[in-house]
């Protein structure tokens, strides 16, 4: 492309943005709104996923030991379980602690009532790397000698696994749906703005402009409009999300919210790229019909 053509494209784009000011505004708004919805949905899905992982990683296996085990044997069992693949941590709740837990809040002295003999077993709490391993691990722990009973709330674990599975699936579907919706909405708007200028395109062709000569300014314009919309959306999503996280982390300290700089940067990048891409492609595709003269 020659220098004077380049000059033309840049000047043309700038002029067009100004002269079709309110159509530009319409495109920018549509891009911005679509991406805002998409952006918030992304943070929501990501956080839900994280929450799901969090819940899953909190599933525990309770291992009750036989009451005849010596502290040494208990330690041995603990070490053996810790060595198993997929085990994240194993913590011991000694029988004395267990009794103290029951005792707390009750006025009558339990130990005395029991005739000084603690009937409770030692208990090992096993945490796993992922919820899916719980079942197998429990089966492996069961036969260890000295282990009396293994419990992991069989019903609940299945429920949680199913729930988080579905949550991830629905989240993905949601993002897919919204992404398609955004693209369609933005294309419609751009198509309408190009449509409003179809006569211009026709005239340009009649005067001898090649398709690319007409396309470039539209392409650039679409890209700039898309970028502007995406910038607006990014600003709002980042500001809104970090604000929300700040509030929620004060009030809902127990819910883990993603707040890493990396995550937010990726989000912004994704939005900017989509905005520019949909904008420029939208312009190009919409133009095609009207170039056929």
């Amino acid at each position, binding site marked *: 492309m*020659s220098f*004077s*053509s380049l*000059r*033309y494209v840049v000047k043309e784009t700038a*002029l*067009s943005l100004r*002269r*079709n000011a309110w159509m530009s505004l319409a495109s920018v708004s549509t891009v911005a709104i679509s991406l805002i919805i998409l952006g918030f949905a992304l943070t929501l899905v990501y956080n839900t996923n994280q929450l799901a992982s969090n819940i899953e990683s909190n599933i525990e296996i309770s291992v009750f030991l036989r009451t005849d085990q010596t502290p040494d044997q208990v330690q041995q069992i603990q070490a053996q379980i810790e060595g198993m693949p997929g085990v994240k941590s194993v913590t011991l709740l000694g029988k004395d602690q267990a009794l103290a837990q029951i005792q707390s809040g009750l006025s009558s002295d339990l130990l005395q009532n029991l005739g000084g003999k603690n009937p409770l077993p030692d208990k090992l709490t096993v945490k796993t790397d992922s919820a899916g391993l719980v079942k197998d691990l429990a089966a492996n722990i069961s036969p260890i000698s000295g282990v009396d009973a293994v419990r992991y709330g069989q019903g609940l674990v299945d429920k949680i696994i199913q729930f988080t599975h579905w949550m991830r699936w629905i989240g993905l579907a949601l993002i897919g749906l919204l992404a398609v919706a955004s693209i369609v909405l933005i294309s419609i708007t751009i198509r309408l703005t190009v449509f409003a200028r179809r*006569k*211009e395109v*026709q*005239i*340009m*062709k*009649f*005067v*001898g*402009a*090649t*398709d690319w*000569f007409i396309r470039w300014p539209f392409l650039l314009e679409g890209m700039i409009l898309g970028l502007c919309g995406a910038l607006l959306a990014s600003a709002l999503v980042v500001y809104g999300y970090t604000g929300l996280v700040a509030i929620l982390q004060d009030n809902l300290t127990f819910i883990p919210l993603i707040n890493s700089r990396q995550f937010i940067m990726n989000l912004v990048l994704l939005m900017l790229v989509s905005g520019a891409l949909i904008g420029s492609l939208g312009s190009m595709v919409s133009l095609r019909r009207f170039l*056929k*003269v």
Partner: protein
Amino acid sequence: MFIQLTNVSKTYPNGVRALIDASLRINKGEFVFLVGASGAGKSTIIKLLFREERASRGQVMINGKTLNRLRDGRVPHLRRNIGIIFQDFKLLPTKSVHDNVAFALQVVGASTREIREKVPAVLSLVGLEKKAEFFPTQLSGGEQQRVCIARAVVNNPSLVLADEPTGNLDPDTSWDIMNLLLNINKRGTTIVMATHAKDIVDSLRKRVVAMERGRILRDEEKGGYGSEL
């Protein structure tokens, strides 16, 4: 550029037969008037010549190239060598008078300097030097027509297609424009002009092609608007 129409017919999609078996040869450098009643098919011939429309039958050739077979990608290059004065002006509404005319130069990749020289020159030829920064909606009908004329000739085209170029102009301005076209013609440009301006056709005594209901009825060197018979 020379033009050759061989048994050309044009039937519009709705069934109107706008051109019926028309044959015509126009040599390089000729000045041809197309005359005929409203709806006779004058604009249709012009539209065929810059490939706005394609012939339904027959052959339209410009400089030996058959337009029916021209690839879409080559059409812009065809049009760049043709200056077209449209019956309905077809100005870009979002561009000023200057930019409308400059556009025809930008399309062929003219340099900024060339544009800066040629556009004001041609605007003063059509008497619009003072309206360069106006937009089409801010112009009178005749002024818009003159912008269209300026755009058509700024590029030194080898063929000018003029569809009713004086329809919105007073007699004096019309003659100015005619002189402009005659000058261009003298420099070797072929000119095909559809018109209803009896005075002009009668006094210039150029070749006249008269049409009626899609047919070429008469083709006279040094003819007049009405039949000489």
